[in-house]
């Protein structure tokens, strides 16, 4: 239901995707760094929403302030010409547990 509402709330031209933090330590410094680094490769503006908090995906510090633990559900929101690719890349990072655990 949430997803539906989020999809509705999405602005025109905005790409959203729900992801879940699966790595054991949550979004700690290294995954947050990778996330920000990857996000910085795209022109699109990208945010991460966790509960009612929305932060800039290109800022490692903002990502850290989410203090997202294992199991947290996050929404990625991107807007701009390469928004779709950006969300795709970031989702891949989450799925691969940021390459930390195999």
């Amino acid at each position, binding site marked *: 239901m949430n997803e539906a509402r989020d999809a509705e709330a999405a602005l025109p031209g905005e790409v959203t995707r729900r992801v879940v933090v699966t790595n054991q*330590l*949550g979004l*700690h*410094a*290294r995954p*947050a*760094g990778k996330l*920000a*680094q990857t996000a*910085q490769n795209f022109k699109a503006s990208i945010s991460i929403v966790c509960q009612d908090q929305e932060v*800039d995906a*290109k*800022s*490692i*510090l*903002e990502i*850290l*302030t989410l*203090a997202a*633990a294992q199991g947290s559900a996050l929404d990625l929101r991107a807007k701009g010409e390469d928004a779709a690719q950006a969300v795709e890349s970031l989702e891949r990072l989450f799925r691969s547990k940021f390459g930390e655990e195999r």
Partner: protein
Amino acid sequence: MARVVIPGISVSTGIAIGKAFFLNRNRLAHLPRLTVADEAVPHELDRLAQAFRQAEEELAAARDKVPAELQEHRLIIDSHLMMLKDPKLRGSARSYIADMRLNAEWALEKALGDLEKTFGALDDVYIRERMQDVRFVIVKVQSHLIGEDKDLRSIQGRVIIMAHDLTPADTVELDVNKILGFATVQGGKTSHTGIMARTLGIPAMVGVADLESHVLEGDFVVIDGLAGKIVVDPDEDELTSYNELSAQFEDYTRRIIRECQLPAETSDGYRVQVMANIELLEEVAAVLDRGGEGIGLYRTEYSYLNRTDLPSEEELAEKYSDLVSIMAPRRVIFRTLDLGADKFIQSFGSLEEPNPALGMRAIRFCLRHPDLFRSQLRAICRASAYGNASIMFPMISGLKELRRAKSLLRDTQDELRREGVPFNEEMPVGIMVELPSAVMIAEFLADECDFFSIGTNDLIQYSVGIDRTNRHVSYLYQPLHPAVLRAIKHVTDAAHQAGIEVSLCGEVASDPFCVPIIMGMQVDSISLTPQAIPGIKRIIRQARMSDCRDLLREVLSCRTVGRVNRLVKETIFKRFPEELTFFASLLDNEEHGG
């Protein structure tokens, strides 16, 4: 007229005239905080960007040097680099510059502060601790903004050192041939800086609160260690009179030093022992050169400060034995650990107390930590085998404390006896009388110890109920307060009635206005900073005991400090006009106090 005159605490007398040279050891803690003109905003933004770039290059270079097998370490540096590149932090610093026109250093500090607030509010401990990484990278940027620290060896010509604080490590690095004087923001009368300066015989001031905001690098300044002030940019007239005063003072100093080995005896034959308060073994030479007849107060705290572990009994015993044997047959009085209030040992963490001066300090601290106390007591007893040592307990408030301390001392002596370690069985045991409670029961205390030493610094503080390090109330620190004079008189009489000796070891003993009054009370000895010994000895040699007794009688009949001060000033100026030219500061203080 001088551009500005800043007051401070003189810790080493004399006059120094020269150029200010700033040592900014603690510079990151004292970043320049300025607002800049609109036109300067782009420049500050550039400085910020460049400092970030330099810090990035520095980190990237460090990363490349990490060997492949330390992959983990490299990843940490990676996340540091990410933090440096973070748009939030940099953006926030940029907007502080652009919107509020702060200089780059301050803007960055504010941005960091905001971030710390956000992080500090998080429940996740791990994330909260990442703030340390952020701070680490920001410190790198700050260092690039400020530029390189000046090298002490780069000092050209002779200068006056200005610093926020000088650590013992700083002072050992200084080339004394290039230094005319010191001034620091931090520090008190007994700080290491003061001791160093006195040993070197150069003027020094501490506690100069406005130093950093009023004095610029290269300014022409006068350190007036006689009056306790710094004159910035003196005009020609001021300079001329300071040059004269400086020459007079040097002349006077030479003269009193020539006579300082003569005994401190009044013209009508009353003899008082003049001893020295010291903290470091290195000061012994100064004591002997300046006519000190013994060590009336050896402050033992220094061996415990500025280190993370505790000194061993062995280390202490060696140091104490050296002191006792160098001074023998002269007396050395060891004051046992007087920690607390403003001095703490790192091994015990800082005891945060709402009222440190009234808290866990001195003998209370030692009785609370008997093992630590025991090692010091054993070391002092072992040193007593080498000469004329005495032991003295600080902050005794009543008989129970005295008895407990003495019983611990007896225990350690029993141990030493069993172990066959030699020590002086007859070592005198005394106390510092510095609390009003001890004053009131001085008769009882006198029955159970071998000598008294009146610590006037604390006695004044506790009698008047002020923290003497608190600038707002320090004006109440009045050595000639009738209550203080009566307290000293009471303690002296009680000691003499019990047939024990009494000494006076606070700053009062080095105050030429107080000494004749104390003489009138017939104290057996006084103990003071080595530097002040020649001047005080000369005053005593020129005084008559009958005059001192008259002065005391008159002073004891005064009801207010103001009256005492006026009386003392008149009498003493009449007798010692020359000496007192150089002690104007004491008069000034009394003016404010009275």
